């Protein structure tokens, strides 16, 4: 037995020990209260984040339809093949099967199958049949997820307009970018609860947030016209061995673009494959194509995807005389009847600027000067207005701003500053040189001058509908009225019709249709390089324009005059599309012929 004295202090100390331990346990209890009450939400949220695996479900991207309702950008079901490390039972069989079905190297597949990760993607964009076949093997650990891939049934048609999408369903170029927010929809998610190895806990079930499919975009392009225009452009490029050919077809009254061709186009279903044309243009033979640096490849791709009608500027040359003439008429410095004399050149300050006709056109009125595309006359008109007035008209016509077309990367106008515009600059600008604009700008301005004076906004997008076809939004574009007077517009139409019926644009003449237009042949910089751009702007019917088109042939070999090579392109285009659009009826030729001769008679 313990001695009495000892016993008391022992007991005391044992009791102290007990209370010390209890005190510590009580403190730990408060620690637990803190963790399980105050911090509960924080840790619970963190834990849920850890337990839930999120798989996103792609939303079907909206389609793009042309004006006839033909689907030109669609989705096709493709599969993504992945493996889940922890679920694989027979690794070798899985590797063997995936190599065989997907045509991948064993090394590549093995590295992915053997990688310790929650889920490893083997290949995406696998077509549905292959995906279904793999699913039928029913191998543990192999996952086949269905997905959508953008598909363009027309291949390369209007490639630079439509653009394409990337792997995450986002637009990369073209309309796919501009209308991305309408098209993309909203991705859904599947939330599953998994254990630490990523295996789904069955009892926990899964929650799904359904994706919202994208809306459909209806555009003004008519694939029939686009298709025919592409054919003509290819033909012109081939026969003229040109670098590129662009054709734009537009409704001049509201700016709806019916076609926009930039050949060479590229295959929208394989946008990352550099076309042979690009390789040839870059002087890369087949063998070298394999060894391109990333930067080289990217540059070539960017060049291939470039939409010349919108992204590139050029010196318009004589087609710009439409604008000079309209400004001249509007300002009153010239009338159709004004008389001029062309000796074959004109001296501006210390420069002698030649007319394209060496001997000169002699005495002529303004109508004939336009028909002859006489440089000295247009220089005189420009000089009569003076820099400031001319410049004000540029502004009024909307030339100095972008057109606002619904495609990305529109280039701006490169023009002299008004204070730097001396006589020589003024003179060269008058016939379309020494500054640069985009083809779409030229066409839009010309359209606005001949359509009665309303500056339109060129555009593709017409309306947005949901997947059931209900209109979600009708797209509207600004029209600025009265940039030229109705009278000037009418005079311009008459003069430009004369250009086609009797002047430099006669190669665009179609019997029985009233066509107006203007040719251009511009030498590209640097001068004397022998590189030209031949172009023609034409519209029909001349008295009430319903369609306007421009054809631009870049660096043609041999004959390079716009009137000789670009005008026939527009003529062929009109010959086919005017009946199609119901603007020309061959059966009413006689009536049209009579009215045509009547009109021309008046003007002469």
């Amino acid at each position, binding site marked *: 037995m313990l001695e009495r004295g000892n016993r008391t202090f022992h007991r005391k100390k044992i009791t102290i020990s007990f209370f010390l331990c209890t005190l510590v*346990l009580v403190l730990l*209890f408060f620690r637990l209260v803190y963790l*399980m009450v105050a911090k509960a939400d924080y840790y619970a949220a963190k834990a849920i984040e850890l337990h839930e695996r999120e798989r996103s479900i792609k939303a079907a991207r909206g389609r793009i339809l042309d004006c006839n309702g033909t689907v030109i950008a669609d989705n096709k079901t493709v599969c993504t093949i992945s493996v889940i490390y922890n679920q694989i039972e027979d690794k070798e069989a899985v590797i063997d099967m995936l190599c065989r079905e997907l045509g991948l190297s064993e090394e590549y597949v093995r590295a992915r199958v053997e990688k310790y990760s929650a889920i490893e993607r083997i290949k995406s964009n696998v077509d549905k049949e292959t995906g279904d076949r793999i699913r039928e093997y029913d191998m543990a650990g192999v996952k086949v997820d269905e997905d959508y891939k953008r598909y363009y049934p027309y291949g390369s048609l209007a490639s630079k307009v439509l653009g394409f999408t990337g792997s995450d369903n986002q637009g990369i170029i073209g309309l796919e970018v501009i209308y991305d927010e309408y098209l993309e929809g909203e991705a859904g998610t599947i939330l599953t609860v998994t254990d630490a190895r990523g295996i789904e806990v069955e009892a926990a079930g899964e929650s799904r947030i359904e994706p919202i499919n994208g809306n459909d975009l209806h555009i003004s392009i008519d694939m029939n016209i686009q298709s025919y225009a592409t054919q003509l452009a290819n033909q012109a490029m081939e026969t003229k061995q040109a670098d590129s050919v662009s054709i734009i077809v537009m409704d001049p009254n509201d700016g709806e673009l019916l076609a926009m061709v930039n050949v060479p186009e590229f295959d929208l279903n394989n946008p990352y494959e550099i076309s042979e044309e690009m390789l040839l243009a870059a002087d890369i033979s087949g063998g070298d194509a394999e060894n391109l640096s990333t930067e080289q490849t990217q540059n070539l791709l960017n060049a291939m995807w470039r939409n010349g009608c919108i992204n590139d500027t050029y010196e318009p040359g004589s087609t710009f005389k439409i604008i000079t003439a309209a400004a001249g008429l509007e300002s009153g410095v010239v009338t159709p009847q004004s008389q001029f004399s062309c000796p074959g050149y004109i001296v501006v300050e210390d420069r002698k600027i030649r007319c394209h006709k060496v001997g000169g056109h002699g005495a002529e009125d303004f109508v004939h000067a336009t028909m002859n595309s006489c440089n000295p006359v247009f220089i005189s008109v420009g000089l009569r207005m003076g820099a400031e007035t001319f410049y004000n008209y540029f502004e009024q016509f909307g030339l100095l701003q972008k057109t606002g077309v619904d495609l990305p990367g529109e280039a701006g106008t490169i023009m002299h500053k008004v204070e730097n515009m001396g006589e020589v600059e003024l003179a060269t600008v008058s016939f379309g040189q020494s500054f640069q604009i985009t083809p779409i700008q030229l066409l839009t301005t010309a359209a606005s001058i001949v359509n009665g004076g309303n500056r339109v906004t060129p555009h593709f997008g017409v309306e947005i509908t949901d997947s059931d076809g209900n209109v979600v939004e009708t797209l509207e574009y600004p029209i600025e009225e009265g940039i030229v007077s109705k009278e000037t517009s009418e005079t311009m139409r008459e003069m430009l019709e004369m250009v086609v019926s009797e002047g430099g644009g006669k190669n665009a003449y179609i019997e029985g249709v009233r066509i107006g237009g203007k040719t251009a042949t511009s030498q590209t910089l640097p001068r004397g390089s022998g590189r030209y751009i031949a172009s023609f702007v034409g519209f029909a019917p001349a008295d009430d324009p319903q369609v306007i088109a421009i054809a631009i042939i870049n660096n043609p070999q041999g004959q390079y005059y716009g009137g000789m090579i670009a005008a026939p392109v527009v003529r062929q285009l009109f010959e086919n599309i005017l009946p199609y659009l119901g603007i020309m009826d061959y059966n009413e030729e006689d009536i049209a012929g009579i009215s045509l001769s009547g009109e021309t008679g008046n003007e002469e």
Partner: protein
Amino acid sequence: MTRKKKKQGQSEYFFDYSLLFIVLFLLGFGLVMLYSTSSYEAAQKYGSSTYYLEKQIKATILGLIGMIAIANIPYHFWEKFYALGYAVSALLLLLIIPFGHESGGAKRWFRIGGLSIQPSEIAKICMILFLAVMICKMGKSIRTWKGFIALVLMPVPIVLMVWKITSNLSTAIIIMGIAVLMVFVASPDYKKFIVMGLGGVAAVALVVFYIVNAASADSLDYRGNRVLAWLNPEAYVSDTGYQTLQALYAIGSGGVWGKGLGQSMQKLGFIPEAQNDMIFSIICEELGLFGAIAIILMFIMLIWRLMVIANNAPDLFGALLVVGVMGHMAIQVILNIAVVTNTIPNTGISLPFISYGGTAVLFQLAEIGLVLNVAKRIQLKEG
């Protein structure tokens, strides 16, 4: 001594049914929680959801048999084995070097047949016996500085071996803690212990200060990194802080009411081997704050019963044995809960009677058997 007289009145002797009940409750509760915690991992790893449960039940039955046997052996019987126990502990620890079985990066076990035995668990009970005998032998010389220092130094060789050979700092701390508590109870002095306590706190603070201000985490060993992970587990989530953070997720997501028995998510592999040291976090997750309180209360009751028995023990030897067991239980429960709640840096300490571990439960029950025998010798005053 009055032993003979007592024997004549056996019926007057006391059997502590409360203690037995508390221990049985903890064992039963422990097995339920062990099954809940380990079944998923067991099924994945061994194809049988009861793999861990079965092993633990076997050890528990063996332990209960051992407990009943020891409860019926007069505790003075063990007195003569004190030096042998010390020597055996030291020998077993030394034998770990050539024959130890390595698991999880540490050499701590012997594998004999299908059984694995952890010598450091044996060392704990041997140390309790050894110190109890030594203190009794020393008598009043414990009050001298010499006696005090001698007593404190006695467990040090075993402690160092546990620490260095089995690289098990936590068990080393527990053994040292048990020793200090026993010396504290045996010595009438307070000052020395207050100084020791303050010194200990100062040393810990200094070490933590050093680690926090160390030039870089690379220059520290894994214990240093554990301290850093303790201070900011979320910054070390990929390695040292992982287990702690996972335990905090479990505790926090349990909330006040818990997710319900069997509903833990964190046991699905997020907390590796949750049935071992981290089982308390799963208890928190499944049974909530109230479940956790219930367990803490049960342990407080266990310690209280041990205190009552120690206070009423027939002699100093018996009292010291019970104090040793009390210290063992209390320190382990405190450290386990402190680790799981990230109150102290992570170090592997199991929860008595509940965590998975055969040797541990076997020897814990043996200790309870010893206590029950001491309790039996208590003479009821008015009896």
